[in-house]
């Protein structure tokens, strides 16, 4: 029990009091794990992550049912600030760098919750070690760096808060394939060397499954499948729908396939 870092217990999320975006999602992130959350556009990945970081109120959303626990503690009364303080840091979909701040200032905003400035300087160097690419651009305004660099800035910024868990929303979005690979490599290194756990939302199932230990597939605000990455990777239905494998090759036994045929996900 104690090795569970984050536990989402059957939550429902409503936007503007009427739009039901999540219809009962349960998910667990164990300490030291990289868990990926797969699903098509509008499946509810971002909403799930925002529920964990308590950013929903900023979007007029709320958790209308269920609960989220961080190390066994209910996060219901906590603000976004409290959660960052407790070690949950979110990298938003689309990166959201502070475009008029320099790369280095962007990173330093991540250390805002900590008073210790000497420590922040050390953390900064650590971030630069993981992301040598952005060290070169440290003095440029973030808005003028490339998409891949911005993704690194956003992850680095989250790291500066010294998180236990990073909620990473679609890191592959809009960046070149080889850079995506590079970003995921760094994520894996951070996980191994710094012990940071990750919950990664992705549409790119191929890459997410390659690096994750465990995966959840969501559709329409519900978890449709869950399991260790290798197991999911091997499943014909997942291959067909999320990994773009041929349609009628091993057409034998997929229990959930019917479900998926209702709406084929579109890939960006």
């Amino acid at each position, binding site marked *: 029990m104690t090795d569970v870092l984050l536990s989402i217990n059957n939550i429902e999320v409503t936007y503007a009091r009427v739009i039901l975006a999540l219809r009962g999602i349960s998910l667990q992130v164990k300490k030291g794990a990289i868990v990926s959350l797969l699903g098509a556009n509008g499946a509810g990945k971002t909403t799930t992550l925002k529920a964990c*970081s308590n*950013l929903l*109120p*900023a*979007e*007029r959303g709320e958790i209308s049912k269920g609960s989220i626990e961080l190390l066994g503690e209910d996060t219901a009364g906590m*603000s*976004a*600030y409290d*959660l*960052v*303080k407790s070690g949950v*840091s*979110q*990298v*938003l979909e689309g990166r*959201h*760098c*502070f*475009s*008029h*701040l320099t790369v280095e*200032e962007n990173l*330093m*905003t*991540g250390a*805002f*919750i900590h008073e210790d400035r000497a420590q922040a300087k050390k953390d900064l160097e650590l971030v630069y070690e993981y992301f040598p690419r952005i060290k070169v651009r440290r003095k440029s*305004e973030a*808005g*003028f760096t*490339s*998409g891949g660099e911005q993704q690194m800035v956003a992850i680095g*910024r*989250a790291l*500066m*808060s010294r998180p236990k868990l990073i909620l990473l929303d679609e890191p592959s979005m809009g960046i070149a394939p080889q850079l995506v690979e590079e970003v995921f490599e760094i994520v894996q290194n951070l996980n191994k060397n710094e012990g940071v756990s990750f919950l990664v939302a992705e549409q790119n199932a191929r890459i997410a499954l390659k690096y994750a230990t465990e995966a959840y597939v969501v559709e329409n605000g519900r978890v449709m499948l869950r399991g260790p990455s290798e197991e999911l990777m091997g499943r014909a239905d997942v291959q067909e729908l999320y990994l773009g494998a041929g349609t009628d090759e091993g057409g034998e036994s997929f229990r959930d396939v019917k479900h998926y045929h209702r709406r084929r996900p579109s890939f960006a």
Partner: protein
Amino acid sequence: MGFDWVFFTELIVGGLMSGVMYSLVAIGFVLIYKSSGIFNFAQGTMLLFAALTFVKLTEGGVNFWVALPVSMGTMVVFGILVERFMMRPLANQSLLSLFMATVGLAILIEGLAQYMWDSAIHGLQLADFLDLALLDPVNMTIFVVDYIEWLDILISKFDVFATIVAGTMILILAVFFQKTRTGMSLRAVSDDHLAAMAVGIPLSRVWALVWAVTGIIALIAGLLWAERVSVSFTLVEAVLKALPVILIGGLTSIPGAIVGGLIIGVGEKLGEIYLGDLIGVQGIETWFSYFIALVFLLFRPSGLFGLKTIERV
């Protein structure tokens, strides 16, 4: 017909000095806009409220050096209250609702000022207070409205004083926002609210700070301005002077507010003397600054220093 260079220089200097004042008032707008994306309609009434608080204290016999920090404290409390009871409940509402809330705030302050104080016109001779406080060893009348002569140019001493105070204030603010951690968090919030929340910058604290600082700016600007127009509801109109400054400088830029203020200050003086004579109209000062602003807008629609949205594909 020789050109009167002395007079011209006098105009420029005078213009620059009123310009610094305009900049200070404009910065009040810029801060609120940067931190929360709203145009603060209540800025003018905040000026009045702050100055009135100070005047009533001193009229009640409170010493200048006590009245000043007490008025500042009042404005800080005001800032915290605005955050708690206006910004926080409306945080996720539309910008229009927030703007309307500042309209409501203006009406509230105006009523409150009338109820707590009164609606009479108060003279504020800041110069007198300062005369007591800062004795000039040479002629004992340093800041009373008299003039210094410099290369044949006559400059009002109070204007010099006001310029120094406003200028220092602006400098402090600029350094504060560029160099400090808190300043950086404000710039972060102004760039991207959601990202700021995601990294753990507490919006409510930033807002309270900004409103408190804006309150202090309102106090300083109100006191300096009151010297010219007295403390009454006409003080609210000081803000009308800041609007063209914002149009030129952009709502998002402190340097823009500074340069915009100077341009308006000088442009207005020059326009009044030379253009006014030319077209034979008196008192064009009241609208000429808007004319300057419009001309600028034709060429720089987002303002002289308005932050351009950085778009990368």
